């Protein structure tokens, strides 16, 4: 829908402009390099983006498939599930069900962008603007990435993880390692710290920690192994006190299940704990990406759109290249209506890009309505600065709450469909009108919130005097209970890691049911 409003100032042919950087579809290193310089000029000098150095890697489609299956990372430890996704992707690709991405970008320093050899020169230009500057700026500046990930260390850490797991396989057997990884993967979503600062990943420290673990493990006092007779002599009150102290010592309740198991499981070997740690470190690394998907893509699309237009305005790319770009761009940011057969939820590229463009519009060309809704920045004529602040300080949820304008809601013709499973009908409870704006805005934000992305599951108790059973508590939000089938499949994995009984309890004000596995 944005394809029609492309550019306002066609390059005047009478003005002398340098010849375009490239013509035709073929690319070579010189052209790519020249293009990069031109893009960089616009991105850094004009837009003032702040990016990591870039490393562009040219890969084939086969290598792109490989990269897919290792969750986009350049290195990954081995596990059958990656083979499974490889086979699935390969199959889909060969049958033409799905195309391949044009690039993959990795949040690392230097920022690695994979681009495919099949891309035309126009695509390479677009991809560089999109990934090497758009995503790169977002990775380096967004507060979530700053807080939770360490771009300097990730490549070293991946190398460490790969080697470590390979070494474990050598020593303890592929089957044993696979079991632990299977179980850890089942708890990946529950292996994320949400509220505390992550420690930096440091390979040297990792080795050190492993050594220390080996040394002190034996001598370390574990309350879980306390023998019963000693306890019997104490009276109940005292036991209660001890238990409370213990619960505190174990840090309950704990929402990071993998962390809890790594630190406190009575049955795991040291290497198994380290594997849990690797899996949860990876989950943690991806955590910010899940929370900023829409903004991240919006930022990258805005940046590539801006840069491509500037390149065209200054005569550095041809009309043909511009047309190719617009064709591609408008397909990427297309948003099918809810009743369209291709509708698959809200397209993060579409919403992200539209919101960024909308902020630009409000900054430069506000209506009275915009002034009323966004007094802080409406008409300040500093679109890029305003956007950069947004990219830095928000995530999808808060970004929508802060910046989704009535204008955009009307453009998208958004409405909220309330689906209460206990009623025989869906209810349209808000549409894009004056009464509905705030409701839609908060409903859409809630869709991107942590609460709706992740279930609230915590370790709340371990029975230290009896059977060492672990109790997990699921706090029900909006009446959504756990999928029983999945629970029955996941519980055995937790039991493998914990060594004793595990049960899940779901808590809601009016329902209190316990599911014992």
């Amino acid at each position, binding site marked *: 829908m944005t394809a029609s409003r492309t550019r306002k100032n066609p390059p005047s042919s009478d003005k002398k402009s340098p010849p375009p950087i490239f013509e035709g579809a073929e690319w070579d290193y010189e052209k790519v390099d020249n293009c990069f310089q031109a893009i960089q000029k616009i991105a850094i000098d004009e837009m003032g983006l702040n990016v990591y150095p870039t490393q562009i890697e040219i890969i*084939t489609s086969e290598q792109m498939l490989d990269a897919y299956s*290792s969750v986009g990372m350049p290195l990954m430890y081995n596990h059958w599930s990656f083979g499974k996704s490889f086979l699935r992707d*390969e*199959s889909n690709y060969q049958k033409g069900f799905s195309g391949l991405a044009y690039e993959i970008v990795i949040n690392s320093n230097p920022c690695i962008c994979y681009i495919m050899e099949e891309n035309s020169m126009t695509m390479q230009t677009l991809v560089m603007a999109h990934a090497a500057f758009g995503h790169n700026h977002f990775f380096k500046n967004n507060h979530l990435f700053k807080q939770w990930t360490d771009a300097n260390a990730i490549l070293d850490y991946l190398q460490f993880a790969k080697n470590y797991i390979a070494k474990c396989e050598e020593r303890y057997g592929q089957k044993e390692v696979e079991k632990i990884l299977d179980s850890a993967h089942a708890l990946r979503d529950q292996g994320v710290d949400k509220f505390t600062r992550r420690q930096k990943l440091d390979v040297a420290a990792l080795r050190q920690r492993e050594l220390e673990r080996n040394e002190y493990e034996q001598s370390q006092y574990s309350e879980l192994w306390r023998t019963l007779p000693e306890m019997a002599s104490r009276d109940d009150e005292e036991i209660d006190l001890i238990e409370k102290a213990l619960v505190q010592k174990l840090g309950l309740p704990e929402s990071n299940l993998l962390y809890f198991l790594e630190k406190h499981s009575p049955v795991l070997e040291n290497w198994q704990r380290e594997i849990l740690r690797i899996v949860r470190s990876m989950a943690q690394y991806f955590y910010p990406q899940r929370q900023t998907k829409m903004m991240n893509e919006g930022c990258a699309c805005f940046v590539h759109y801006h840069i491509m237009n500037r390149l065209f305005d200054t005569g550095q790319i041809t009309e043909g290249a511009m047309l190719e770009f617009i064709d591609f761009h408008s397909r990427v940011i297309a948003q099918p209506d809810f009743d369209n057969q291709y509708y698959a939820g*809200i397209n993060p590229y579409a919403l992200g890009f539209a919101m960024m463009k909308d902020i630009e519009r409000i900054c430069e060309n506000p209506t009275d309505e915009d002034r009323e809704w966004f007094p802080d920045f409406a008409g300040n004529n500093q679109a890029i600065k305003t956007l950069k602040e947004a990219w830095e300080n928000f995530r999808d949820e808060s970004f929508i709450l802060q910046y989704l304008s009535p204008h955009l809601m009307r453009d998208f013709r958004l409405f909220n469909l309330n*689906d209460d499973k206990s009623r025989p*009908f869906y209810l349209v409870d808000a549409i894009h009108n004056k009464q509905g704006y705030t409701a839609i805005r908060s409903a859409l934000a809630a869709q991107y919130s942590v609460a709706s992305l992740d279930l609230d599951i915590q370790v709340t108790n371990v029975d230290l005097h009896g059977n060492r059973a672990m109790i997990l508590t699921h706090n029900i939000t909006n009446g*959504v209970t756990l999928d029983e089938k*999945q629970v029955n499949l996941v519980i055995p994995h937790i039991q493998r890691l914990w060594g004793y009984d595990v049960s899940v309890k779901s808590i809601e004000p009016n329902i209190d049911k316990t599911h014992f596995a």
Partner: protein
Amino acid sequence: MMHIIDRRLNPKGKSLSNRQRFIDRAKTQIKKAVNEAIANRKISNTDGGERIKIPSDGLYEPRFTGDSDKGIHDRVMPGNKDFMPGDKIKRPPSKGQGQGGRDASEGGEGEDGFHFTLTRDEFLDIFFENMALPDFIKKSIKEEVTHEYTRAGYKRQGSPSNLNLKLTMRNSLARRLCLRRPRDEEITELEEKITALRQQKKHTIKEQNKLIALLEELEVKKRRRKVVPYIDPLDVRYTSFTEIEKPNTHAVMFCLMDVSGSMGETHKELAKRFFMLLHLFLVRQYTKVDVIFIRHTHLASEVDEETFFHSRETGGTIVSTALEVMQKIIKDRYPPEDWNIYAAQASDGDNLNSDNAHCQHLLTQNILPMCQYFAYVEVWDSHEAEMFPGDNNATRLWQAYEELKLSHQNFALKKVTRPEDIFPVLHDLFAKNKKSEVA
């Protein structure tokens, strides 16, 4: 600020080991799928990989998820046409709702399978697991071995064609450096200095002394250059090759088939599958496999594959003619000392009664001693099998062959009625550690 790295030449198949792990994990399911796949395959189609579908049990990765059929969900959607706040939309009947398919399939029920393509090698590996060629080792040791050259380091002597330039020059350079052989530049420099001095019209004593010193130095260096040669025989290295023995890896497979009127299309189809599998199997074991097709009625001839399977012939049935042709071909082209010989015969069991004894004789006296293995399958169509169940209704040829089986370990016979029977037959024939069936 930017690097471009070309990764295209990096080794492919980074996920090969993950793929292998996946296949190991799904082994039993894959094996079953492979067996089903082979039952419906064409002989012309033995080269490609195979697309198979396996149920997803054991391959599912569970996670805690919310139950999508419970609770209250708000969904903001784009593209409102004419909804007004307060509109109610009747819920469509549960299940079959939207993209429910995925949840249902991954719930561990395994109804919905996982599709992917095995490579040819993976396919065959799984297919031929637990199978080995009979007497392969014994025969290959006994056999005359072939020789092959492989690289084996470097040596000081050798033919000029094997001269290893790189290593030779490296040694030469090291020696020249150690023995301080004067370089060309040093000599030219000296000579220039000398000419420069000589060109001066007047010389001081100091300069004259210097000239003499330079001349002496030049003399010394020139001599040194002669003494320390550029390339010394000591430097020279040759690439070395060594001969290694290789077991004979050539095999010839004889396909013998009765094409008389009594063999219908179904019979031929069954026989074809048997030949196909045997061929696949041999190709896997030997680097070179020749296939010879011999068809017979009351006359036998060697034909190409197309004719073998598709042309029709009429006439009586005399099995021994085919055996004679086979014997002749072995004698002419495939001396048993050089070739591993396999034979597979398919027939419906009809034979001229008086010929059976002759067949027996040919096999015991001439053919079986030369063969690694001789397999006979008798193909019956399903009507026949229903009409004559059990082994008591054996054909004459079968009876004659059965006697051979008792005295020859490298002879096997089986009866086949349906395509599904073929694989187990082959499996039995070539089962690893096959127990001797001789009492």
